[in-house]
């Protein structure tokens, strides 16, 4: 049986166009797939999932609906929104929530935001933020609210909450 995988040139071209650095990595024993929980045992391959990891190594976004043909472009757009969200967070939220989202002593009754995207959708985060009354709905445009949710959903988990292996 001869088996091969598609040469990476196709993807390389796309990424060159988008100015992305690009590596194709081989995980022949599937160990990394398993550690990331993306191993499809039935078909002995990876599931199509993308993790966006920030400069400090934290998982900030998990993309489960990947359109392969569009993915390079979608990722550029995702990073653009994340960066917009980051600047909004810095301007409006960090004062009380802290740079990492987990400050509890900067303002009364502030709860850690780290990992909030594991229990709330982007829309729920936006609604809860507006409901809190600290940022009026009209302060941000709709796309700005969405960008803020993209950024906030993956804020680093609070220290001491890092050993739960469930996704």
């Amino acid at each position, binding site marked *: 049986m001869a*088996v*091969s*995988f*598609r040469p*990476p040139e196709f993807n390389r071209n796309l990424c060159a166009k988008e100015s*992305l*650095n*690009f*590596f*194709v*990595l*081989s*995980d*022949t*024993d*599937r*160990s*990394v*797939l398993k*550690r*990331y*929980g*993306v*191993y*499809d045992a039935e*078909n*002995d*391959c*990876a*599931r*199509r999932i*993308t*993790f*966006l*990891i*920030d*400069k400090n*190594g*934290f*998982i*900030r*976004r998990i993309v489960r609906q990947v359109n392969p043909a569009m993915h*390079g472009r979608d*990722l*550029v757009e995702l*990073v*653009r929104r994340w960066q917009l969200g980051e600047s909004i967070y810095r301007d409006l939220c960090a004062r009380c929530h802290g740079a990492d989202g987990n400050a509890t002593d900067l303002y009364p009754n502030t709860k850690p935001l*780290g*990992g909030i*995207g*594991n229990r709330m959708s982007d829309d729920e985060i936006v609604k809860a933020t507006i409901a809190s009354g600290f940022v009026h709905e009209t302060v941000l445009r709709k796309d700005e609210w969405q960008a803020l949710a993209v950024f906030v*959903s*993956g*804020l680093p*988990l609070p220290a001491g909450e*890092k050993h*739960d*292996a*469930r*996704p």
Partner: protein
Amino acid sequence: MRARWHYGTVMMVMLLALTWVMGKEAKPSERDDVRLGAKAPDFALPDSDGIVRRLSEFQGKKMVALAFYPALFQAGG
């Protein structure tokens, strides 16, 4: 086309491809914490030129998009 700063986006796309292997079934796996906000598990894997890449080599430098996808196998003639 897109605004110029899109092109400047510091991002690294890594694609994990499965190469073929007649390997034995690996032991039942311990999945790491891969929730949002968790520290991404580091790894060391060879790229298409055989150079070992580690996730940690980008730390403090760039955002990384780690894209897993099903390998596209082709039956050879």
